[in-house]
């Protein structure tokens, strides 16, 4: 098809020069637009199929009475806001929402601060820098579920390594995962451990971009290390910090696998998050409508932060 369109004007050009000259730029332009769309099309189709469709489906599902029978009959009657009402009336939802907030804020602060400190530390030259840096990357390489299972053993109140170690100092009876008050804190700690490499790597990359001369100039002016950090490192690192925090937020707020492996949401729902609640609703109770509601809420929260992120980036461009 495209080959005839391309060869036709070329053949007719000498015979009807004035007529052919006029449409030529037009068809060229059209072809260019077509070409541009041709390049965009795969991405658009991909996005619509694999992101748009599930998203819309999930929203629709949250207004449907979607049960195991639906898989056979294909019938999922609309039930208005019933699913939403049920989810909001469930005590567990409020609890999970609050715990998700605590989990996310705690993880982000911990990951970021330790990640930044390590990035600054590794930004200087010293022996074994490379080796140590790659060692710190290890948690990143371990699958989340594996980390969860290993940490569950480490944190076991009676037979865990951590308590045996603390026992040497006479403090070996911490109920890391077996008390309702402590479990969430322990899960946050493990997640911080997992998130440090990501924060460190990105921030370290950002630090490499900061011109060394600025520090030299600052130290000539007599700026202290802290002052240099505050007035040079932080401001210049701002765009990278935004990226790290937003990406960190998105991967933290939907946490599921780690919690399932560590505590299964327990003890007594003290580590339930919106992620585990979605899982429980959809795959334990097979109430897919309720699961979709919680899923949508998670998407909404992430979307709000994505907007903030885009805003911040746009201002950065100006």
């Amino acid at each position, binding site marked *: 098809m495209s080959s005839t369109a391309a060869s036709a004007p070329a053949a007719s050009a000498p015979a009807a020069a004035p007529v052919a000259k006029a449409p030529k730029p037009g068809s060229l332009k059209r072809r260019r637009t077509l*070409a541009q769309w041709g390049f965009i099309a795969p991405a658009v189709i991909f996005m619509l199929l694999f992101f748009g469709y599930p998203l819309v489906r999930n929203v629709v599902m949250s207004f449907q009475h979607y049960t195991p029978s639906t*898989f056979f009959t294909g019938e999922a009657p609309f039930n208005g806001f019933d699913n939403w009402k049920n989810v909001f009336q469930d005590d567990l939802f409020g609890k999970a929402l609050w715990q998700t907030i605590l989990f996310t804020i705690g993880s982000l602060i911990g990951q970021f601060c330790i990640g930044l400190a390590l990035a600054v530390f590794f930004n200087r030259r010293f022996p074994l820098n490379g080796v140590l840096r790659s060692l710190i990357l290890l948690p990143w390489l371990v699958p989340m579920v594996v980390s969860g299972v290993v940490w569950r053993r480490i944190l076991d109140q009676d037979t865990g390594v951590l308590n045996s170690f603390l026992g040497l100092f006479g403090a070996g009876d911490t109920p890391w*995962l077996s008390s309702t008050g402590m479990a969430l804190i322990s899960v946050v700690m493990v997640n911080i451990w997992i998130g440090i490499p990501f924060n460190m790597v990105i921030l370290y990359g950002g630090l490499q971009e900061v011109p060394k001369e600025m520090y030299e100039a600052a130290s000539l002016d007599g700026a202290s290390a802290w002052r240099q950090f505050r007035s040079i490192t932080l401001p210049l690192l701002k765009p990278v910090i935004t990226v790290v925090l937003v990406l960190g937020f998105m991967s933290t707020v939907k946490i599921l696998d780690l919690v399932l492996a560590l505590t299964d*949401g327990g*003890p007594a*729902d003290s580590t339930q998050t919106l992620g585990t609640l979605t899982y429980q609703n959809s795959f334990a109770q097979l109430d897919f409508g309720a699961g979709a509601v919680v899923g949508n809420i998670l998407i909404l929260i992430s979307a709000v932060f994505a907007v903030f992120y885009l805003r911040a980036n746009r201002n950065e461009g100006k």
Partner: protein
Amino acid sequence: MTAHITDGSRQRRRRLDRRVIVPLTVVSALVGAVALSGCGSQRDASVFTVLNSSTDDSYHGWDAATLKRCSKQLGVTIEQQSVPAAQVMTKSLRMASSKSLPDIIQFDGSEMPTFAETGGLLDLKKLGVSTADIPQGILDYGSYKGTYYGAARTVNTLALFYNKDILDKAGLPVPTTWAEMQATAKKLTKKGSYGVALSAGGAEDGVYQFTPFMWSNGGDETDLDSPEVVGALDYWKSLLKDGSLSKSTVNWTQADVNDQFMAGNAAMMINGPWQVETLNTKKNLHWGIAQIPVPKAGDDSVGPLGGGMLTIPDVGDTAREKTSAKIVNCMTSEQEEVTYALNSWMIPANEKAAAVWRTKVPSLSSLADQVATARSRTAKLGSGWTSVSLALQSAFQSALTGQSSESALHHAQQRVESGN
């Protein structure tokens, strides 16, 4: 990447455009077509599929051997598809929506009612699956609302496993009542070693372990805040208070409990026969098995009935379904049941097969006695079991971490009634 583009390269680029657009469009069209067509597959008339959760090497091998023998006997090819236990249900539902259900699905007993409720399972009696010599309790276990949907090959339940060496050394008999178990456990609890281990984790494992205490005490899943259920939970709490039960018990699955027992960290444990294979790998561990202790002498020890059951989903092809029934008959034949039971340390569902099995593994006969009185979790509530199970998990975990049993169970009962 802001290199300047000369006119020549721009020209070349434009020519490239056409060459690229066509393949790109074709690729995106293909991707779209594949994605939209889903994975609905054509059935091969002579190939039958069994979906089960035998992802474990040994179980997968035993099942493969059974299916091979049945294939030969029936002159068809039977293939095995194994997914993790937690995914059997969701996988089956997905297959149902794409009209590609396997011919036989092995469900866990607690899940079968949910699938039966959708109308997706066939009545096994009508298809000619034999029910001869199967005890009523196991028939009920495989039934939902009076229809027999699930044929069990073997069943299992929980029992009290004890470390013979530790008990002998302390000169203590195997406990038979709650009071005895509490006293024995207390005596056997030393630094780094607990009297008894059980799973009170936040999943079906924990609920499964709670049922024998709840039921033997006269409690019932339909009334979670009854004094009997409260009493059972208080008993767990008292073991914890004595220090006979590790505080980590709320994080332990049944496999963790077994690990603790094998490591010598527990003198007794509540667990099931599926652990025997692992237990036997440790040669210097001498263990025995007994019925789960009862509230007072003379009470019945009521355990939960567990184990997978073979179901035949509605694939819309009567001839195929008839052959599937023959496969189920073959898999549940006396001989296959004995073989499978001996491999997996479970108890044959068929009475005659169970009698043969008892003579071969007398050490496990207390397990067979426990099965005789065992109860199905879903007999009373059917598909409603899942929400009760979730509420119960939360309740015993609350109670074991500080709340009173009464208020925790009261809250659980309210949660069940409000439908959340």
